[in-house]
């Protein structure tokens, strides 16, 4: 718990308004990342029927497994928001707790994804198998790579928070991290729907 005088607090808040330059810059980065994912979605949409005699999404995907993954990632997005609310109150312990929860949930999501990937590769359905699987691994793998980077970021930030105090600079970093993490959950909505749910109904 840090006690900042009211006047100083408002100055800090003013300096990091959401429309400050750093926020806008990071927002522009996230939007360009959306364009990257859009191109991968376009590749998947074009190639997803080219199974080359191999298995289709309907044969490979387990909807209940993906539902669990989705709910885990969604919950981690929520706990990340709770960490930001705790940061706004200046409650350092709750910030660490909620970021810790976010990290664990994100990590279990990543473990589930890697397990799914390694099962596919073991069964001979790797990215070599068909155009469908190449585009599937590229799209979902790129999301997984972002999750990995996000987890590293959370770990580094948690170490810094537990050592130093939560000044305005730290809160700004946390805000950027939470933007990134919510963005990953938003990308996952479309992976869940387009890759998995449409794959399960076999469209």
């Amino acid at each position, binding site marked *: 718990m840090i006690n900042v005088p009211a006047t100083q607090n408002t100055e800090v*808040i003013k300096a*990091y*308004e*959401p*429309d400050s330059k750093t*926020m*806008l810059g990071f*927002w*522009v980065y996230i*939007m*360009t990342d*959306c*364009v990257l994912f*859009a*191109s991968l*979605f*376009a*590749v998947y*949409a*074009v190639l997803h029927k080219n199974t080359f005699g191999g298995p289709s999404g309907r044969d490979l995907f387990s*909807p*209940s497994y993906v*539902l669990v993954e*989705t*709910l885990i990632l*969604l*919950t981690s*997005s*929520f706990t990340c*928001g*709770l960490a*930001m*609310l705790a*940061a*706004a*109150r200046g409650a350092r312990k709750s910030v660490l707790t909620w970021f810790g929860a976010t990290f664990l949930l994100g990590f279990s999501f990543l473990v589930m994804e890697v397990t799914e990937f390694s099962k596919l590769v073991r069964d001979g359905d790797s990215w070599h198998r068909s155009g469908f699987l190449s585009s599937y691994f590229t799209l979902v793998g790129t999301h997984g790579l972002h999750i990995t980077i996000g987890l590293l970021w959370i770990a580094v930030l948690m170490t810094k928070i537990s050592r130093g105090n939560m000044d305005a600079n730290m809160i700004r970093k946390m*805000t950027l991290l939470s*933007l990134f993490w*919510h*963005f990953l*959950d*938003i990308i996952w*909505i*479309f992976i*869940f*729907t*387009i890759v998995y*749910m*449409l794959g*399960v*109904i076999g*469209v």
Partner: protein
Amino acid sequence: MIRKNTQDRTRSGATLRSYVTGFALSIYFTLTAYLLAVRHALFNRTLVLVLAGLALVQFVVQLLFFLHLGTETKPRWKLMVFLFMIMVVMVLVFGSLWIMSNLNYRMTPDQINSYMNSQSAL
């Protein structure tokens, strides 16, 4: 009381209520999409449209309640960059699908075969 309220807000205008609402709605839309898809509750064409609709609604919910896009004050630069991104994405995704399906449509199996043969002859 007022002081506590202002303290519970982050700079982006987030409140506990907004996160809980966003979380609950997202779970609701995810489960609906899951049940519809797994039970194959509708005909293919309708089902695809409904699933796409649910994804878009959840997208908007998370934008508003998690990313707080609606709380921005003028000039709304974030919103403008966002809308530009949506435009680029639309052109990219639907443009690719349009062109590729058109190419597919114009290429008969005979043409594909002769093309493949000419490639393997090289």
